[in-house]
């Protein structure tokens, strides 16, 4: 079976790749482009560890085909920091110990950033429901929710 040529933008850079039509975007990111920050926890869209942005929409990369990325703008965890400065969410997660093993962290961060772009003043309940698609088995979510709320509050105050 011949492969399909795909041209896309990932974290602001142009990428071209060839992929099989059945390959998921997650598979392409991890195996064709060597962007290993997006994780595979389930491959069925249940865990959110592969959360990425596609044209400003939060998606599970395991539920998107690689060919669908053609002409789109993809943002992954690798694009959150700028140079040596971390995104405020990344820094807050470290400061508040909002991660333990860290496997869910890339997906949670991408999802949390998507929330804060839509909603500058989310309630605890809104954070909890927005992140309900990102499973974390270590933290019990407490410190994750606090970190997101604190970043939102700090952004409003600056």
């Amino acid at each position, binding site marked *: 079976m011949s492969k399909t040529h795909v041209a896309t933008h990932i974290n602001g850079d142009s990428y071209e790749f060839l992929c099989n039509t059945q390959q998921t975007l997650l598979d392409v990111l991890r195996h064709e482009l060597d962007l*290993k920050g*997006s994780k595979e926890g389930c491959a069925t869209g249940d865990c959110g560890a592969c959360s990425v942005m596609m044209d400003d929409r939060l998606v599970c990369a395991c539920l998107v085909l690689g060919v669908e990325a053609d002409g789109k703008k993809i943002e992954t965890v690798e694009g959150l920091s700028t140079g040596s400065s971390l995104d405020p969410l990344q820094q807050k997660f470290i400061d508040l110990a909002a991660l333990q*093993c860290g*496997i869910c962290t890339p997906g949670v961060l991408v999802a949390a950033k998507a929330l804060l772009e839509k909603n500058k003043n989310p309630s605890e309940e809104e954070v909890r429901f927005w992140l*309900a698609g990102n*499973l974390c088995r270590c933290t019990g979510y407490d410190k994750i929710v606090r970190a997101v709320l604190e970043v939102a509050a700090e952004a409003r105050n600056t």
Partner: protein
Amino acid sequence: MNDMTQTNLERALKIVGSRPARPDGVDKVTGRALFGADKSLPNMLVGRVLRSPYAHAKIISIDTSKAEELKGVKAIVTSTDFEDFPSEFVPNGEMVVNMKDITRNVMAREKALYVGHTVAAVAATSEDIAEQALALIDVTYEVLPHVLEVEDAEKPGAPLLHDDMITIGIEPAPESASNVAKRVEFGFGDVEKGFSEADLIIEREFTTQQVHQGYIEPHACLASVSEDGQAELWCTTQGPFVVRNFCSKLLGFNAAQIRVTASEIGGGFGGKTVVYLEPLALALSRKSCRPVKMEMNRAEVFTSSGPTSGAKIWVKIGVKNNGQITAGDCVLKYQAGAFQGAPVGPGAMCAFAPYDLKNVRAVGYDIVVNRPKVAAYRAPGGPISEYGVESVIDEIAIKIGMDPIDLRLKNAAKEGTIAPYGPKLGPIGMIETLEAAKSHPHYSAPLGPNQARGVASGFWFNIGGETSSSITINEDGTVGLTLGTPDIGGSRASMAMMASEELGVPMELIKPIIGDTNSLGFNFLTGGSRATFSTGTTVVESTREAIEELKKRAALLWEVSLDQVEWFEGHARLISGDEPKTMSLAQIAKQAGKTGGPIMANCSMNVTGAGPSLGTHIVDVEVDEETGQVSIIRYTAIQDAGKAIHPAYVEGQMQGGAVQGIGWALNEEYIYNEKGELENTGFLDYRIPVCSDVPMIDTVIVEVPNPNHPYGVRGVGETPIIPPLAAISNAVSRATNKRFDELPLSPPKVLAKLMHG
């Protein structure tokens, strides 16, 4: 060790007890950290596993010839590629393993014993080809009747999983084989006499279902065996040295031939303490002489790794009207899965351990069934048995009209109590956690309609074990730490903090790494709540040894005797002398070349003296009487940490354990169909708590120091999963005025009880 304990507990601490950033934080928030599936090698093959579709079947033959002919297939392994072993039990943390069983669990031999049991494995140039090859392997099975539940498995005439299994622990030994692998009994006194003295006796049966650790990272590994038999293994594991030893035995390697490097680990909770893919990948790599990468998918994680037991338990407690417990008795029947090794021993040992009892007995049975072989899961065995006991304690409190915390306080274990499993307890925090619970604002907060409050306590032993770590003082005054226990939840931070505290240099100058199996002596795994306790002990010991060496070098440079030099806040200091004289660690390190060479120290020991950790949890639930839905409204976890090195990560353990317990209590269960197939093999149907299911988890860290650790650490990881099961069940029982005795408290089960009693 007691001397140094004194010193540290009396000294004002600068770093220990604070909340610095973890050394691996940036790697983990940027996606840079490499987990099990994140590494590749040139010329790498992909390995896939053929699994049994039957719950119980004889393997008559396996024909791999067609698969071997498929272009791109480079190696196929079956049971003939693995050594067989006589039955021999080896301790593995809080669990016991038997190599005869391990080799059969890694690769089925005579029989497949559960759906998902490995039958063969293939390495090929692509995943597609590997999958095609699996379909070409021709296995002839003779399907046998299967058994899934302990009450069926123990009946005479039940399908036998192992026809040579004679129950251990019964005198005289039974004459015929059964599915009951083992009987254990702990306790003392005379329970019948105790019950005769009671004013009230409550006796009840409980059921819990099989649950999975639910780590988000599936098992994954990358093995590379070269033509001369040297092997490199990269894998996600709680114990690289344990993996090395299992794999070398299974494959006939010696230990030095296999170097295991632990990847970052995406959760384990006990489930990554044994081997599944690792020996397969090594065997495939040895056959093909190419690197082989293997990953489980989520369904395989559920069907073919090591969840914990479902159980049937019976608890009987007698009590005086004043709340004094006169006797406690329980019988625990735990599913082992396909091979013996249910955590019923620890379950029986800790069932009544929060209490100071005169008459106590706990009997346990380890029963094999056609489910995956259980592995450790956070306080293995404890949540199940203590759920039963803590539920009965609550029922007693209601019946005698006593506050449930007061009832526990009246019977609480304390220093000097003889534990039901034998030893006399040292200082422990049962009373302290209960008192903290009682005075917490949560305990007296008003409740709304259909809401109620539940309380339960939990006891866990914690362990020590073989541990080895090293410290190097670099020429520029920075410090390297090499640790042998994978960092699963922030332990690099706590180790660097302890070294920083000892040395008196900033934590940022200390770089902790996890070494591979060639860089240190044997380390037992990260588990049993042992890493901060055991590895922490070796870090403090080796740091103190390095400080002695630094003092020696300063003495040399000053041309004074060693006893003239003391260590103070990162500096050597001349004790006497006309004027104060100090030399910083960096100044000493810079001159190490001319004072005797590089400065490093290591500590290898079998760490003993782990301190049990007690916890008490308070939960408010609301029950929707129309749907049976139970909501967690408020939650507070209180636990004795001994000493919290990094309180944020201690809180994290308490919060995470509590929420895993909430999942166990409310939703999680393995659901099998009549063919013995698991029906909920994904996170959609095996529903672990999501963010919107739970409230903030309030925490109170109690610190009753463990005298056997330099800073008083007990270990905190496991205890917090114990209390939630009973605390939630007690709250639901109180909210509905019906006594619940089955988990999970999922909406259909709660609704059925509300409608039919």
